């Protein structure tokens, strides 16, 4: 059984004039110790997908349908009280901006001890020892000193290390990291990603990494899912998708990267922009920007088809697979 299994999740935002659907029919699973990447551009719904796992989408957002099974229990149906026992304890989160996550008026030590004591009945001294151990794990220089410092006394990279240490405090099963390195410089970003990857491997923690950076996904994750306009349009093993993307949107995203083109040449570009939730096109949401769009794409959302180990929601891919199958049949 998978550690986490999300089935047909729909999330909506109740606004004046009706609901906006932010997530539609999201299904995926995460095994113990597995690293999964959620990729997409802003507005694709990747953060909403991650936040709704812990029911952290604020009003007017709500989970309209679907199940979120963590070790067989449905998080979507749990009371706030039960959820609190899981948040930060069994499933930890790392957010983009470390300065927004840390309380500016409490020392690092106080915040860490508080987090431990919220979940475990142990003395302050014991909690402090755990905090110190985690700070050592994230390789912060002079960890004892850091416990008594305030967040503003640390640099951005160090703050993000503290955040990772806090996420590890209670030995979680899953860490959900939402763009954990986007606010950092390139060299610091590389170090933090490296650290997160090593810790997840050492402690056998599953990682859900939300990012827009395909390079990072390729370095860190084993499986990935690509989101567009609230839907998963492609999911499968990371290497397989990066090397041979099936969905025209994923192909476009990869080919638009400057490292894919010859220096000085025009870059491949997907025309247009992601639609806003207020006017998601009918049928496949990508069809107005897609080179292969047909009448069919404008009217109904394609079902998932399997190509290799990858699931893709695209009529064009489905047609290609069908043609190939017919050709093979004709040959035999």
């Amino acid at each position, binding site marked *: 059984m998978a550690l986490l299994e999300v089935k047909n999740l729909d999330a909506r935002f109740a606004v004046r004039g009706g609901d906006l659907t932010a997530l539609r029919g999201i299904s995926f699973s995460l095994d113990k110790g597995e690293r999964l990447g959620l990729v997409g*551009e*802003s507005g694709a719904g990747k953060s909403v997908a991650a936040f709704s796992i812990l029911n952290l989408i604020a009003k007017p957002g709500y989970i309209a349908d679907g199940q979120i099974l963590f070790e067989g229990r449905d998080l979507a149906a749990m009371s706030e009280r039960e959820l609190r026992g899981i948040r930060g304890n069994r499933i930890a989160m790392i957010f983009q901006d470390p300065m927004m996550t840390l309380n500016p008026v409490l020392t690092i030590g106080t915040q860490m001890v508080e987090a431990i004591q919220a979940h475990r009945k142990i003395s302050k001294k014991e909690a402090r020892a755990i905090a110190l151990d985690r700070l050592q794990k994230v390789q912060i220089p002079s960890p004892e000193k850091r416990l008594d410092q305030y967040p503003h006394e640390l*640099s951005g*990279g*160090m703050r993000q290390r503290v955040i990772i240490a806090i996420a590890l405090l209670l030995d979680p099963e899953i860490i959900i990291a939402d763009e954990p390195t986007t606010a950092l*410089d*390139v*060299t*610091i*970003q*590389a*170090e933090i*990603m*490296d650290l997160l*990857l090593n810790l997840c491997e050492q402690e056998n923690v599953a990682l859900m990494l939300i990012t*827009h*950076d*395909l*390079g*990072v996904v*390729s*370095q*860190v994750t084993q499986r990935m899912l690509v989101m567009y306009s609230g839907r998963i349009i492609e999911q499968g093993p990371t*290497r397989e998708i*990066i090397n041979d993307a099936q969905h025209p949107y994923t192909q*476009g*995203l*990869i080919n*638009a*990267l*400057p*490292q*894919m*083109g010859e*220096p*000085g040449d*025009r*870059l*491949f*570009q*997907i*025309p247009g*922009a*992601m639609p806003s939730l207020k006017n998601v096109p009918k049928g496949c949401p990508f069809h107005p920007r897609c080179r292969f769009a047909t009448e069919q794409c404008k009217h109904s959302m394609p079902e998932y088809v399997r190509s290799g180990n990858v699931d893709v929601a695209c009529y064009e891919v489905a047609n290609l697979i069908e043609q190939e199958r017919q050709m093979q049949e004709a040959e035999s």
Partner: protein
Amino acid sequence: MTSPLVSIRGLEKRFDLSGNLLEQITFEGGRFRRKQEAVHAINGVDLDVQRGEALCVVGESGCGKSTVARTVMGLLSPSGGEIHYDGQRIDNLDGKDALPYRRKMQMIFQNPYASLNPRMTIQQTLEEPIRFHHPDWSDIEVRDKIHEVMHSVGIDPDWGSRFGHEFSGGQRQRIAIARALAVDPEFIVADEPISALDVSIQAQVLNLLMDAQESRGLTYLFITHDLAVVEHFGTRVAVMYLGRVCELADTATLFATPRHPYTQALLSAIPKLEDDRPNHIRLQGEVPTPVNLPSGCVFHGRCPYANERCRAEVPELIATDEGARVACHAVEEGRL
């Protein structure tokens, strides 16, 4: 070699932190002392921008790359050094004398949500610089110019009566580019013009900038932290660290044979699609504060090759066999 379009000589910029005289005075050990502190944002930068090229300045936050851009544009006045445009010193000009250069030099900013006036329509946004620099133009000439630039950046001229907030980030950046192009500049300073945009939109805007360069013969000073973009877009690259240029080379040379230890670390830190794991060169520590600059080479505290000389003596840019210029004692001595 022809003379450069823009040349920067010994540029220095300090930002004073200590406030007025009263705030500077402290009482220490029975005596009054005057204490002055400053952020040393740029410490002696020499750069030439050749006509028709795209010179990229890369570095991490706090390295002074944006300050270089702003000082060149005259948005900040330098604390030391000179800036020349087409042979004429421009950093000491003001008012009327600076006017012709303000038309020839235009800037594109990082955040198109902040750089467009929310109370002005697109028509007004584009009209303002044209009317300012060409007071003698007729309404028809102005209108034609606006149509021409809107068309060239891929914004429908019929949308002129809309406001900035009605557009997406990518479209806003197109409008900001149109505003820069409206007065037919020769030289454009672009400060992180695509970092606030999504991947698929970044490609659109980069293509637009390259098209504009080709059709209008523009020269760019392009500020970015994204080395992948530099490799694609830049003619030459200057790598900055703590207010100094540590390596200057042709793009192809820099990416093929990076010499400065910092450039090597920076290049290795780009996450690449073909990587299965992060494999970057580890640097010790973090960037020191530009308030108290390290002695000698500014990079010595994090450099695996630093020795006594690096700690004492500031390295100058010297030419290498590959035609690059590197400020590193280890490269000069052949240790690296």
